[in-house]
């Protein structure tokens, strides 16, 4: 097969004797990032970037055997040379490069190519074969530029604040929420759902700067915070937890908000088109820059995207994985509750 093979436990490297983001218990797991579909329970040993490690420990337990590696550091594992490179998806997220006897394969994990002001920006890594996610692998997905997004969100919050209304923004707890926090104009109090604040605390403890936030607890007196911005998990909107804030202006921040139908179903007052996955142009640019001839796609609109890549001259295949975490599933409400 080559440097990597695709098994029902995960992506396997024979030369190195390890799996990448496996979904069944294995001896050695290299993990691209802390989202629950990539970093799972039950592995004998884990390897991740030093930046991703604290969140992985927080989620899988302090007692896991987790070794860390810095971006760009090359480590020999068995007969393979392995290094981790920024994927720009969430803080610490990595693409994993594996070189065996001069043949280079890269597994993208989840990625986006546009800098978000929080995660280390995506770094193109040249390779012979690239395993790419394609959560949003259709040309209808094109994200709002970051500066325009900031204008939209700041404007929405300012208008609500002027009207004395709370702005409630639903965003995925790990990554999206912090990216938005780092972006918005901190013009007033920012409250957070517990699942978001848990991640905030972990990131702050490792030295990542985030604006001040207030954790919402059962004791929080919501009347003290008219005009505040509340950042919650998408699944918290519309629940009793959210209703205590009274009539709010609600919004979701998700790549799915590009579709009118989904915006209408989620029935929020606003939908901001923002994702931590690459959009159509991002996917194509990233793949082009790897210089890879072989591309394996996973995670999302795989059959359309594979066919498109084939038309563009790539040797393209589909890899069945069980990675359908964060944004692919967030709208379906199957995110974790932690």
């Amino acid at each position: 097969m080559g440097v990597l093979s695709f098994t029902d436990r995960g992506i396997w490297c024979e030369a190195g004797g390890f799996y990448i983001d496996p979904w069944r218990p294995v001896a050695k797991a290299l993990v691209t990032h802390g989202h629950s579909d990539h970093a799972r329970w039950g592995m004998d040993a884990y390897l991740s970037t030093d930046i991703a490690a604290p969140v992985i420990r927080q989620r899988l337990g302090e007692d896991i055997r987790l070794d860390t590696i810095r971006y760009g550091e090359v480590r020999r594992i068995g007969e393979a040379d392995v290094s981790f490179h920024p994927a720009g998806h969430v803080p610490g997220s990595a693409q994993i490069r594996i070189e065996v006897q001069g043949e280079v394969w890269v597994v993208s994990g989840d990625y986006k190519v546009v800098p978000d002001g929080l995660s280390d920006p995506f770094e193109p890594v040249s390779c012979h074969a690239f395993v790419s996610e394609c959560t949003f692998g259709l040309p209808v997905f094109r994200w709002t530029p970051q500066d325009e997004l900031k204008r939209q969100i700041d404007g929405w919050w300012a208008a609500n604040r002027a009207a004395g209304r709370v702005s409630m923004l639903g965003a995925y707890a790990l990554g999206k929420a912090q990216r938005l926090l780092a972006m918005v104009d901190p013009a007033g109090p920012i409250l957070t759902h517990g699942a978001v604040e848990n991640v905030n605390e972990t990131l702050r403890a490792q030295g990542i700067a985030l604006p001040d936030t207030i954790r919402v607890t059962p004791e929080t007196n919501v009347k003290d915070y008219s005009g505040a911005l509340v950042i919650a998990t998408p699944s918290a909107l519309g629940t009793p937890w959210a209703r205590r804030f009274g009539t709010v202006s609600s919004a979701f921040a998700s790549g799915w908000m590009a579709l009118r139908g989904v915006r209408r179903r989620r029935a929020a007052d606003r939908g901001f088109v923002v994702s931590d996955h690459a959009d159509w142009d991002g996917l194509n640019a990233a793949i082009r820059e790897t210089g890879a001839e072989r591309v394996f796609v996973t995670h999302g609109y795989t059959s359309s995207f594979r066919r498109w890549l084939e038309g563009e001259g790539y040797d393209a295949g589909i890899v069945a994985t069980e990675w359908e975490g964060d944004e692919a599933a967030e709208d379906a409400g199957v995110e974790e509750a932690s």
Partner: protein
Amino acid sequence: MKRFAALFAAVDQTTKTNAKVAALADYFREAPEADKLWTLALFTGRRPRRTITAGRLRDWAAEAAGLPLWLFEDSYAVVGDLAETISLILPPPTRSSDESLSFWIAEIGRLSKQDEPARKAGILDAWDRLAPAERLLFTKLLTGGFRVGVSARLVTRALAQASDVPEAELQHRLMGSWTPANTSWKGLIEAPDPTADASRPYPFYLAYQLDDPGDLGDPADWFAERKWDGIRGQLILRGGDHYLWSRGEDLMTDRFPELAELTDRLPPGTVIDGEVLAWDGDAPLPFARLQPRIGRKTVPKKLLAEAPVILMAYDLLEEGGADIREVPFQERRARLARLVETLPPGAPMRLSPGVDFSDLDMLVEERAASRDLGAEGLMLKRRASPYLSGRKRGDWWKWKVDPLTIDAVMVYAQAGSGRRANLFTDFTFAVSDGDEFVPFTKAYSGLTDAEFRQITAWVRRNTLQRFGPVRQVPPTQVFEIAFEGIQASPRHKSGVALRFPRMLRWRKDKPVGEIDTLEHLKEMLAAYG
């Protein structure tokens, strides 16, 4: 177009009724008259006719975006809306435009008269000048598929606030065949001429489903009749002409030429609410026989002979040119009966027979007999009730029979489109046949959003095989499927086709060994087909 796009965004996204009405009312106060008139037309379902085929628009958009057609089609399958797909895949505009809604509608009219290269150039030019939200609306106008997430009722309420004309009055004025081309804002809203539109129907009175017949009170206050399974229609006889309107405000006159003879048999100035039914001389034919006549503008002779129709008359709204909707139902019905009595036997109109009952038990029995008579259930009308507008509670109730049901297992799942682009919502169900599972229907609706999310998570974790967008899942999830009718269908492997199939319940308690069999499905076909 910017102002209209802002209005559309405001009413399309929020679910807060008051916010929708406020945005509409502001618009009706401020926008120029030509734009207001068009907005009113569009929001009440008066879409300009499609002037350019969907295929052409798709070709041009794919070409402008540099994408192969198959990829456009794959994207369309996810987005679920042609105009939206186009507006999303096109490259961002390089220019901008301050022109109004009515300007762009006139522009579409102008382009529709030109040859194809000129049309294409004009449309590509427009796409390049309009911001994405405006581009979506412009393209929806081109495809003739303009729909908005706001009911005619809210539009009327907003217009009442902005114009000081009472809501019920506006509701009536906005019915009928007016278009922005044949009327003006003044003629329609401010100073209407009641004789201007002889075809103008009255707003239909619609009933809610009755949950508990015990709520009715004294049986003597109520009149019962069958709820016939056809097409609700309003027949208008005015000035020697006749018009037949559907509940969706479609003019269906030419589809049912049988009714033309009523112009000679009934006095002008008569308006009747009834049900168009395929009729075999004594009894209604199944709805399936009427179906082929619905889609056609004109009817071939063969079909006329196979499925002749009548109007089953329910109510009289106008008599001698006078609006009698305020007259109590009992009296309106008596006058209707006198009119129908004047018709010769074999005329294409009958009086919907009353159902006799003196207590609730009799009513329950009558309802149970509905399916055998080809009816959907009972209608209950308070004898003293006026003919109201729209769906109202209290005086009229429909009491439909329980649907037919069957327990089946899910075998395939497919992601929805549009609203449900990232949820699995389209399922194929099977009954058992020995050791095999035989797929017999698809169903898309009936679950709550929370249940759809749950089943989506399950499908993601339990996919056996993928066939393009379709996933095969293990046959373990049992659902109770409800449907309104069953017909033989050689096109389906199971040999049957269901009418209005939907998921009634997710039977998590039921093992797959207890689902219904193909044999049982065939028995149902024999009994109800």
